[in-house]
């Protein structure tokens, strides 16, 4: 049995090497674990990198569990800072900011014009789950607006921001809180309702190179690209705020 187990590991190891081999030649690419809200803009900055887009919390868990990531770009300082403390990533840097908006389907059958209208009975509100950055920011914004009671209208707590965008743009939910940068790809299907500036949460995006990055050099290059002039211009064209 022990021999058999050993063989499994050898096989897995060999498979791992195979992967490393193909990525390890002269044009080696970084594997970037990035927040779902960066899905559109990151491939514009570097089309050649390998991306894994998901909720920042999921990405952090994956890296903690040993996923072979080179770069972590999260929609909140919470997870990069935590991984930095655990010694899993280098010191994170803020590379962009974002703000929240309320979106409703174009036909807006529930007739929602403001956050106050969310209190109406029968409104189906979809938000991010607690612990997911968009979910935590949504709760902060509602608290700032003294409107936490609209949480009673929540019909689903999504695991990342794309889940919220999808259910509202499908017209199945009446409203959802998302980042302003998520609206662009679905602007034909949803209407954006701005939130008061003073109620906004501080949404900071942090990027860090993973300590055991398999493609260490490519990882640093990627981070420099994002922090550089061209990267920043593309981020701001996509609606992100400067760091």
């Amino acid at each position, binding site marked *: *049995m022990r021999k*058999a*187990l050993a*063989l*499994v590991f050898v096989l897995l190891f060999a498979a791992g090497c195979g992967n490393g081999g193909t990525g390890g030649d002269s044009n080696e690419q970084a594997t970037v674990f990035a927040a779902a809200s960066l899905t559109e803009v990151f491939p514009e900055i570097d089309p050649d990198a390998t991306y894994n887009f998901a*909720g920042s*919390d*999921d990405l*952090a*868990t994956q890296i903690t569990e040993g996923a072979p990531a080179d770069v972590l770009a999260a929609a909140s300082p919470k997870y990069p800072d935590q991984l930095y403390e655990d010694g899993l990533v280098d010191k994170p840097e803020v590379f962009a900011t974002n703000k929240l908006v309320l979106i409703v389907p174009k036909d807006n059958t529930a007739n929602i014009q403001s956050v106050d209208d969310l209190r109406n009975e029968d409104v*189906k509100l*979809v938000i991010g*789950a*607690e*612990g*997911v950055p968009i979910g935590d920011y949504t709760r902060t914004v509602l608290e700032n607006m003294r409107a936490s009671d609209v949480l009673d209208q*929540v*019909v*689903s*707590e*999504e*695991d990342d921001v794309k889940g919220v965008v999808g*259910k509202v743009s*499908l*017209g*199945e*939910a009446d409203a959802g809180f998302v980042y302003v940068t998520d609206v662009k790809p679905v602007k034909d299907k949803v209407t954006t309702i701005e939130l008061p500036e003073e109620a906004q949460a501080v949404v900071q995006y942090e990027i860090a190179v993973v300590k055991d990055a398999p493609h260490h050099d490519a990882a640093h290059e990627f981070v420099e690209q994002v922090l550089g002039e061209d990267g920043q211009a593309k981020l701001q064209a996509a609606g992100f705020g400067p760091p």
Partner: protein
Amino acid sequence: MRRPFEVVLAVSTGLILAFLLLPILALFLRIPPEDLLSQLTSEVAVDALIVSVKTSVIAHAVVLLLGTPTAYLVATRRFRGRSLVLTLIELPLVLPPAVAGIALFAAFGRAGLLGDTLDAAGISIPFTQTAVVMAIIFVSSPFYIRLGIAAFEGLDPALMDASRTLGAGPRRTFFRVALPLAAGGLSAASALAFARGLGEFGATIMFAGSLQGVTQTLPLAIYAQLDIDFDIALALGAFLVVVSVAVLLTVKLLPSWTRFTLISLAPSGRSD
């Protein structure tokens, strides 16, 4: 010295067994058993358990009630388009769960095919427990029907003919002959379909969303807790493994049990 071929067989089996069992074993070894148990009594876990049991039981009742006659019809009647019906029943079996999710939206969602009709009737399905039940039925009923057809087809046609020639109508033949004889196979089909429904994830998270105490089933709770409290996710995972083992044991034991009762009943019937 064994022959090389025997060694190849043994090594292949050993490798695949190790690969399949190691992750399941690891689930139980990662945190102490008493912690696993205490995590299961957490609010999230209990809420998910209640939602899962409620929706699975309702869905399963529907599957048994509609699936059994369907399986019987397809197994015993020859009609035009029968193989088409069979293929349609099998389709959801091979469909990716995410496809099932958007398909349910496309049919029963507010913007879906029946959206206006349902809306006019004051019915809204997405994000409700009804949506969870529908997602479960969509993925588990083909399982039950397919295995149910096999169970009915496995019956000795002579027995069915005998029932008919002895004057029993089709209804009597179904309830008194086919159903009792196929009970073992149907129970196994039922247990496997129930397990499939209990594990439903993809269609549910899309069509019903995820809200604790309302639509968050056990698999959805595992996903949601993955990043918040990994121990709860582990505990729920371990719990579902135990349920799965119980289902498998049921499947293995039920047919032999029913066969046993049938055999033990048979002599008293024949000796007269």
